């Protein structure tokens, strides 16, 4: 092995590091350590001049190991690795000591001890760097197809963008219709008809590049970036494309069920069209509730119905995946009389009531008696911005703002007020945050329209009850005027927040992606990498990543499609072989490593009595290595000796 020639570069990060850590003292200390040829400190190592400093030293001083003591490697490791490559040495002859996040920022008031810690971390890094080996790359082909999971606003947008770029897309949707929550809405803020937007979205699905799979779920998902395999099961809809929507089947179906999509406000049949503007425009049989009477079969002139259809299993190969599974509306758990009083509804239910294709054909009526309400109260921030566990809910805290609700509430309040100016509309709010373009104007219009705004403090939330004469009443303390108000109302609308879907965990485990604290899928970096996940080749778009309105969802979905397209266009992906490797001389074929590998990347060759690593499947976690009783399996770049070198240097000698 060539003798290590180490260069150490200590970054000031402006004053972020140098304001706490004595960088000159650190540099003087590391200069004297074994194998160190040069040690320098500089104001911003990640800047171009900083990188040039490293590159020049590599050439002039013949350095073969580089240490940068600066920020987290999660931030700039790739930056420096590229610099090494440009200077002609293997990018894995590099090690970072994190003296910003783990030192200067965490020990602001202890400069001396922070300086000592920085020295220790760099000493450990040098010890490891001396034992590093070059890592080679492997190029693998990318299957030029994508899988998009969930056909709501985000999914359709992403699928369409990819299709426009010429890539085949499998768009997998759990429901029998597409459009997600958009399909349930009446209007979007600033008077955009939701069904118009839905239509323009569903038109995009006519491109032959998009294979829409309704009623479908991914049941198995394996492979690696560029080469994923998905097994999709498509449940039958029992009605085929010959359906001409005549509706006769529905008339003769004897089964009546509460319509789930209208929150039980009306009934539907076992054979039904989910929504009048559903896409695909084909009826569907709710087989769980069908009694198999066959009336529909007899009346259907096109022979479109077959009650014996079987589920289909579809295997697809894809290079990239975009997860666009969306959100669930928060379901109030008894707060504000929800569930107890029929006329306390959520805002999504109101959208159905106001919608022309809803249960009352767009006429605002109360669920209890079907009369039009004169006094309507909206209560905002239900299931959003919960700071602590209040007495009314024992559900997990949703500390976040759901973002869509302020403008959505104002849109509905104004719509009701404009349609019936004699009605009294009360908006009971904690704060109003109408941040997007045009929404501040919407707020002002509401203020001028005669809607009553009542602000409450979170620790004194409004209460909803019925008085002895059966009158629904909201009691609220107006925080601004410091008065208690008792408002008689006919309808209470709870403006529910967005929460992560119930099946988030299923998706997470299947696709090896992570959830953040709020339950939604976690992006790789909030600012720099909001569309990637930590799993390479798997992207996220829309409200599955956090509450979003339609505008933001479309933006993010297009972004995710563009990100996926980078790999699809290239057709190739380069993988660093930071993978497990087997010392065949030492391996006894005990196969303990085979059992711990989560990716089935190690196989036992029974004839040779030793294990073999399938490199493209290996993700380099190293469980095999720590399981091997004799150290015969090692992970490149994380070999025992490389880690132990750091352990041995924990104390200054």
């Amino acid at each position, binding site marked *: 092995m060539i003798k290590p020639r180490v260069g150490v570069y200590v970054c000031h990060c402006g004053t972020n590091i140098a304001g706490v850590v004595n960088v000159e003292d650190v540099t003087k200390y590391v200069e004297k350590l074994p194998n160190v040829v040069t040690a320098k400190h500089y104001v911003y190592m990640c800047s171009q001049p900083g990188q040039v400093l490293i590159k020049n030293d590599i050439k002039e001083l013949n350095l073969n190991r580089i240490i940068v003591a600066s920020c987290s490697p999660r931030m700039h490791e790739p930056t420096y690795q590229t610099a090494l490559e440009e200077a002609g040495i293997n990018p894995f002859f590099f090690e970072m000591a994190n003296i910003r996040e783990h030192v200067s920022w*965490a020990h602001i008031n202890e400069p001396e001890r922070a300086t000592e810690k920085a020295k220790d971390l760099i000493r450990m890094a040098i010890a490891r760097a001396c034992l590093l080996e070059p890592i080679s790359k492997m190029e693998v082909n990318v299957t030029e197809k994508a899988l998009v999971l969930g056909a709501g606003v985000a999914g359709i947008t992403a699928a369409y963008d990819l299709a426009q770029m010429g890539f085949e897309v499998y768009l997998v949707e759990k429901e029998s219709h597409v459009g997600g929550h958009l399909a349930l809405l009446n209007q979007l803020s600033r008077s955009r008809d939701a069904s118009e937007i839905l239509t323009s979205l569903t038109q995009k699905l006519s491109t032959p590049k998009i294979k829409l799979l309704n009623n479908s779920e991914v049941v198995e998902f394996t492979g690696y970036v560029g080469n994923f395999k998905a097994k999709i099961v498509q449940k039958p809809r029992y009605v085929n494309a010959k359906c001409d929507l005549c509706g006769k089947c529905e008339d003769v179906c004897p089964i009546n069920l509460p319509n789930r999509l209208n929150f039980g406000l009306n009934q539907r049949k076992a054979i039904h069209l989910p929504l009048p503007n559903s896409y695909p425009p084909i009826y569907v049989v709710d087989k769980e509730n069908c009694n198999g009477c066959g009336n529909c079969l007899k009346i259907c002139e096109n022979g479109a119905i077959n009650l014996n259809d079987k589920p289909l299993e579809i295997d697809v190969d894809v290079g990239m995946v975009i997860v666009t599974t969306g959100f669930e509306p928060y379901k109030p758990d008894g707060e504000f009389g929800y569930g107890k009083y029929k006329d306390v509804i959520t805002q999504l239910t109101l959208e159905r009531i106001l919608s022309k294709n809803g249960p009352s054909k767009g006429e605002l009526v109360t669920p209890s008696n079907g009369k039009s309400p004169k006094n309507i109260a909206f209560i905002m921030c239900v299931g959003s911005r919960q700071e602590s566990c209040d007495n009314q809910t024992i559900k997990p805290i949703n500390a976040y703002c759901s973002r869509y609700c302020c403008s959505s509430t104002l849109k509905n309040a104004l719509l009701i007020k404009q349609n019936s100016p004699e009605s009294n509309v009360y908006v009971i709010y904690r704060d109003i945050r109408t941040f997007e373009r045009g929404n501040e104007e919407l707020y002002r219009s509401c203020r001028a329209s005669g809607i009553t705004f009542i602000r409450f403090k979170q620790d004194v939330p409004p209460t909803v009850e019925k008085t002895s004469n059966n009158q629904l009443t909201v009691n609220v303390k107006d925080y601004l005027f410091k008065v208690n108000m008792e408002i008689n109302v006919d309808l209470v609308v709870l403006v529910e927040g967005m929460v992560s879907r119930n099946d988030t965990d299923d998706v997470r485990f299947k696709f090896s992606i992570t959830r953040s604290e709020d339950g939604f899928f976690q992006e790789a970096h909030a600012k720099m990498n909001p569309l990637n996940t930590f799993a390479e080749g798997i992207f996220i778009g829309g409200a599955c990543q956090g509450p979003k309105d339609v505008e933001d969802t479309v933006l993010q979905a297009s972004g995710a499609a563009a990100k996926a397209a980078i790999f699809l266009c290239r057709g190739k992906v380069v993988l660093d072989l930071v993978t497990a490797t087997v010392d065949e001389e030492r391996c006894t074929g005990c196969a303990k490593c085979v059992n711990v590998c989560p990716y089935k990347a190690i196989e036992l060759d029974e004839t040779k009595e030793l294990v073999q690593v399938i490199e493209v499947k290996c993700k380099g976690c190293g469980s095999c290595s720590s399981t091997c009783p004799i150290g015969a399996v090692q*992970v490149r770049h994380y070999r025992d000796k490389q880690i132990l070198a750091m352990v041995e240097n924990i104390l200054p000698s």
Partner: protein
Amino acid sequence: MTEDFEPQILAFTCNWCSYAGADLAGGSRIQYPTNIRIIRLMCSGRVDSLFILEAFRHGADGVLVTGCHLGDCHYVTGNMFTEFRVNLTKQALETVGLEPERLRLEWISASEGEKFARVVKEMVDGIRKIGKNPLRS
């Protein structure tokens, strides 16, 4: 027994959850004792019992092993084996006469910067009470 000394604690973190949690602690300027030195591995499943024992042999007063929460491992099941291995190593420590409390396993997610800082603080306080590693020169 208490002793006036600065415990030296070695931490093994996984790249995806707990190292990111430590980054978040710093990023949020949450202050914690300086006594900890972190070694970043890809997965807590990479933590070999040998690394822990060697850390004590080379003078660490305490060893902290951290990873993603169970069920949340970036490598699906890696941390389950970590738990098994750490428990086994604790027994080994007892056999050689070291307090098993010197070794601690914690699940810290990328969003738990505060927890990271709290665990470090608790650990430093705990080790201070237990005393210096007798193998430390």
